[in-house]
């Protein structure tokens, strides 16, 4: 008997993921303008979903408050640009740091609870964050939000600045961020740390009695997850030029959960598939009827019936066992 264990992704799965990235790259040149805009948005939001998936899918932490990490990135990058005239690079860094630091504090407190209590505690923290953005309306302009002018949305590079409001540049920057986070997650889930997260999800008490510090592992997962979500938020702000409290609201805590469930929890490509799928279902349905939410609901029921583990999750279970 030959037992193999790879601490790195297999050649097959590397090829698949590289293929997906290349396909997305090609779409930049093939898609009509309108759809390229949607895809750029979907790429950034699927980074949000991938971050959420790390906590929810792999570690089994059902958080209802991840909007706060996305919004921490959004405000962490947007406020210094708007009020202090920062460049995009340091602002992007500030957004990521803000999200990571917030995740550390919230994780430290919320991980004292599990299950339903964890859901409620994360929801509460997110509400506090949301209300805080409204309280400081002087700086954030609340629901109305801040619009970052085109002039400041420039990424300075050695060869000269990139205009992030240009559709093609925006798409490629979104794809770059997506690729980096996808690769990070792909390697992470094969690595010993990723395996221990899955094992903690499956049987926490057993992991403790194998000598794992369960709390520290979970906290690290929340911080990583929050950091990825913050990166998505920061990128969203600078790429689309809008920073508003709506992104901190409960809706944006539920959406990544929905995207991940539809695409397939604890799969690397599920978040992209789920986000893309939901965007197009809503887009298509709302172009035909104002009752688009009814259609969305029916489609979701269909997905649950035929893809109980999400699209990528069910494909993995039925046909492609090697999918990461």
């Amino acid at each position, binding site marked *: 008997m030959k037992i193999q264990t790879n601490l790195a992704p297999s050649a097959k799965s590397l090829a698949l993921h590289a293929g997906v990235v290349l396909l997305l790259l090609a779409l930049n040149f093939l898609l009509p303008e309108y759809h390229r805009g949607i895809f750029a948005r979907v790429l950034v939001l699927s980074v949000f979903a991938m971050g959420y998936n790390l906590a929810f899918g792999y570690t089994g932490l059902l958080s209802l408050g991840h909007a706060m990490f996305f919004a921490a990135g959004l405000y962490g990058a947007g406020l210094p640009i708007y009020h202090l005239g920062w460049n995009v690079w340091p602002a992007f860094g500030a957004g990521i740091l803000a999200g990571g630091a917030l995740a550390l504090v919230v994780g430290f407190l919320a991980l004292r609870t599990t299950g339903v209590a964890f859901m409620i505690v994360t929801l509460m923290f997110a509400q506090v964050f949301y209300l805080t953005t409204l309280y400081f309306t002087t700086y954030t302009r609340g629901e109305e939000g801040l619009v970052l002018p085109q002039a400041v949305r420039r990424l300075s590079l050695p060869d000269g600045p990139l205009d992030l409001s240009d559709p093609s540049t925006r798409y490629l920057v979104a794809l770059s961020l997506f690729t980096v986070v996808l690769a990070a997650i792909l390697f992470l889930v094969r690595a010993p740390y990723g395996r*221990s997260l899955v094992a903690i999800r499956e049987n926490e*008490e*057993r992991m403790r009695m194998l000598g794992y*510090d369960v709390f520290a592992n979970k906290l690290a997962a929340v911080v990583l997850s929050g950091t990825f979500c913050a990166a998505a938020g920061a990128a969203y702000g600078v790429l689309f030029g809008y920073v508003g409290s709506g992104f901190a609201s409960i809706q944006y805590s539920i959406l990544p959960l929905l995207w991940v469930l539809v695409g397939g929890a604890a799969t690397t490509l599920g978040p992209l598939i789920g986000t893309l799928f939901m965007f197009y279902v809503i887009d298509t349905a709302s172009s035909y009827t104002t009752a688009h939410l009814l259609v969305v609901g029916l489609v979701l029921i269909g997905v649950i019936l035929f893809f109980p583990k999400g699209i990528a999750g069910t494909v993995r279970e039925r046909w492609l066992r090697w999918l990461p």
Partner: protein
Amino acid sequence: MASLTPLLITRDLCRSFGGLRAVDQVDFSLPEGETHAIIGPNGAGKTTFVSLICGRVAPTSGSVVFDGTDISRMPAHKRVRAGIAYTFQITSVFANLSAFDNVALAVQRRLIDDHERGLTSRALVEHGMDALHKVGLAALADKVAGNLSYGHQRLLEVAMGLALKPRLLILDEPTQGLSDSEIENFISLVRQIGEEATVLLIEHNMDVVMALAQRITVMEQGRVLAQGGPAEIRANPAVQQAYLGG
């Protein structure tokens, strides 16, 4: 022969659940290399007692000393890394993972601490398969643990304990639910383990206890009723009355 200081000492160890004293002033010492059985009727406090040792339950009062260090306040995962492994009374394997991956999780944890060897795919396979070989599950390494027979799951549980290379292995009713032939194998397995590690065994099956234990502790209502070699215990009238059924 056992070294001068015992590997494990408990002093005046107590644990109450509400008004119930599950473990009551237990003084206990376990020399290195011994295979020791704890017996007693249901509810005698055996599982609570070993849970205090491995850190799953915090003591109400008293202390646990392992290898000369007071570990009474040490969290469970650190005790495991100090060399105390516990196998669950109710089988607790990772049902969705293969048998090998179950053991690999234990090996991985140990290799992370082993800075000399470090964590590599090769070391993981080598040590993981080694543990599966010891319990005779090597041929089933790639099978999903949840689909293994109950007896095999119990063996997998022991393999996970062995993969930690513990100094003290605590087996909580390991033969519960096993067939007679499986029990035979189990006895010889524990004998082998006993050559390398100190074993603390909770067991109801008296044949297993008599075959394996060098010394036996009898517990009743949270207290130590008697302690001694198998022959002494068999001859002890108090034990006969309380447990062996006269």
